[in-house]
């Protein structure tokens, strides 16, 4: 097992002026589950492919453990791409299916048997070692395919959107399985997804990329409580954080007719008299009686059982701004009403209006 280091790793496609991955610096600890996440075109898959050796590294380097693998061919990097279309062969037993790649690699029979048994135990497949794939359930077959990667005992597992072809139910199941298996194996894993929920639920740490640039890396909680900038704030969390421009005033920031108190230092750091503020849907207090706060016209309330989400819009500085807040799933305002919103004290994220960088300290979860 080993750590993974991206050291100013850059990928510039021929004929392009902007790097697909721009001087990426990232350290994945030994045994860690790191998720690369971002919208399409952000460079997450390119980063993974650079680590896999599929993509040239134009500047900087990539290390697995202490070994510089920047110019090492993929098959000599001691990595495994999991869930690459692994075929299961119908005439071979589970043990053969799991072990045949070791045979090709010239590993002796005893060693093959040892490794296959070890992997089978981890995957709860020991009773089926002598069985043909046809007699296995779908889930078991999937685990045999994982076993093929595990018996190779690679230093690093790489997974590129492995769940994208699955339907919603199987996706949630497999997500849990992969995460728990990774923790049991303790193999360093780099996992790519565009889905921030997948990232939040699976990763020890998450690296958010945009336009080839690393925006932030941290635990799911770090990213949720203290997003570095407006992009991360809007990307992590579902429904997304409400973000809009607000005026700085004496002692705080204007939120409709109310003022949300802020730390004094923020005003001094801001590049102008406005800031971008962000409030998560669960950090908004909704009032149906006319009063202080931001007046919002209710467009729709989505009931999800105990909770619900209110979708509305407000006029902020002459601009229609959409707002989402969490409400009670049963007792909530109805469509067409006007409600008054205030931010829960201490739950406002403040960003510089020019640079988009975070100005306020972390909003800690209650």
């Amino acid at each position, binding site marked *: 097992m080993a750590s993974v280091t991206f050291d100013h790793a850059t990928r510039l496609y021929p004929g392009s002026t902007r790097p697909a991955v721009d001087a990426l610096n990232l350290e994945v600890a030994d045994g860690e589950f790191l998720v690369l996440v971002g919208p399409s075109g952000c460079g997450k898959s390119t980063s993974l492919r650079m680590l896999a050796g599929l993509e040239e590294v134009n500047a900087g380097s990539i290390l697995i453990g202490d070994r510089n693998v920047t110019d090492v061919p993929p*098959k000599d990097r001691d990595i495994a791409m999991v869930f690459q279309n692994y075929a299961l062969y119908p005439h071979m037993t589970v043990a053969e299916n799991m072990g045949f790649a070791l045979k090709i690699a010239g590993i002796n029979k005893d060693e093959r048997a040892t490794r296959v048994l070890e992997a089978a135990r981890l995957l709860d497949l020991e009773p089926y070692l002598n069985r043909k794939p046809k007699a296995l359930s779908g889930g078991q077959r999937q685990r045999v395919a994982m076993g093929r990667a595990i018996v190779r005992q690679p230093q690093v597992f790489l997974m590129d959107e492995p769940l994208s072809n699955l339907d919603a139910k199987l996706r949630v199941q497999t997500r849990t399985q992969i995460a728990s298996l990774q923790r049991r194996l303790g193999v360093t894993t780099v996992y790519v997804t565009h889905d921030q929920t997948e990232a939040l639920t699976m990763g020890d740490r998450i690296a958010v990329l945009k336009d080839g640039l690393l925006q932030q890396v941290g635990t799911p909680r770090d990213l949720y409580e203290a997003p570095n900038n407006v992009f991360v704030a809007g990307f992590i969390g579902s429904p997304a954080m409400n973000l809009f421009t607000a005026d700085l005033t004496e002692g705080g920031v204007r939120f409709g007719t109310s003022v949300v108190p802020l730390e004094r230092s923020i005003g001094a750091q801001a590049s102008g008299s406005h800031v971008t503020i962000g409030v998560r849907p669960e950090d908004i207090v909704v009032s149906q009686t006319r009063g202080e706060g931001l007046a919002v016209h209710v467009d729709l309330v989505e009931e999800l059982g105990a909770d619900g989400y209110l979708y509305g819009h407000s006029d902020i500085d002459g601009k229609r701004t959409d707002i989402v807040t969490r409400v009670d799933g049963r007792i909530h305002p109805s469509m067409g009403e006007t409600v008054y919103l205030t931010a829960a004290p201490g739950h406002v994220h403040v960003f510089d209006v020019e640079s988009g960088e975070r100005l306020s300290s972390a909003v800690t979860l209650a």
Partner: protein
Amino acid sequence: MAISGSLNITAAMVDPALLDLPWDVPLEDWPENTIAALPKGISRHLVRFVNLSGYVIAVKETSEDLARREYEMLRTLQRMDVPCVEPVAVISNRADENGQPLEAVLVTRHLKFSLPYRALFSQALRPDTATRLVDALSLLLVRLHIIGFFWGDVSLSNTLFRRDAGSFAAYLVDAETGKLYTGGGLSNGQRENDLEIARVNIAGELMDLAAGGRVEEDVDPVEVSERIVAQYRTLWAELTGWESFPGYERWRINERVDRLNALGFDIEELAIRTDQEGTQVRIQPKVVDAGHHQRRLIRLTGIDAEENQARRLLNDLDSYAATFGREEQDEEALAHEWVAQVFEPVVRAIPRDLKGKLEPAEVFHQLLEHRWFMSQKQSRDVPLAEAVAAYIDDILRHRRDEATVINPQTGILTLPLDEEELDAELDADADGDWRSRV
């Protein structure tokens, strides 16, 4: 057949017969009378073959995204003249009679006279067949890499083979994992990865055949799988490598062109560099195009054949020209004469009920072989008409029809699998200790 609500069909050309298929029924439950032969194949997705007006289509149920992506990819590959299956349509917005949504499908046209590798031998795979399969696949892989296509799932199962005058011509079937990198082309790492995937998959496929007792003893799966790497590298170097020589050996430029022609490639663009003093010359093919003999044959005769078949036919045409040609006669006129006097009479001589056995160009190739053997055995020049009659009765009549062989299924289970296959047969353990087989 009712067309449900708002079926969405994307196709370059819609065959009206396509509309008559039961799109409101899950593929798995399609009535037997629509299905062409064979039980459903086991693969990543459900694929079934259906008889349409005069041809066979393959229908694959998959997600709409994947179906569209693969459809576009196959269309692009076709435009680039890569041998692959022909995409026909994507059909989405399917729903059953109760309005429950059904998966989208990708429809491709079955490639006539193409065979899955498991259908290329009747009892057990012989070493020379294994070699020819791997050679055909390595040529296909090189062609794909040259245009910047990363396959991601190279295997014998994802390829269809057509007979090609003693060799095979390989066609890409499954482009689902593929990606086209235009502009910069593929990195060495991507090419190496495809090769490694190919090597492991081929070894696995042959080991599986061996486990089913369908490989002759002297076929070593690992050795055969390593051949793809060697073949690929040789071809890649010949097609893309720099070559340098002293300036006075300029004949080596022609030699390189001839070598590539012999391999079936034309050079569209060649980079030539000389050093300061002009004593050393370096050359590298920049743009190469497969189908050297195919193009010449089609230009001269209008006959569309595989590369080796074309080579064979052209050889016969050349010897015809040498025997009967008059000096002032131009190549086109001679070719026209050859088609009328030699090729067409042979094709016409094949009885109607035997037309589904082999493609005309393959028949012609086999006929030439047969005639050669007859002549050797009888120590005389066997006339064409006599050879045709003998070939039809002694050889062709005893072959199976290969026009639409879609069985046996390729028999590979891939991931992800759908949950419906949970019905496990329980007493399916193999005999003995698992360790003996690992």
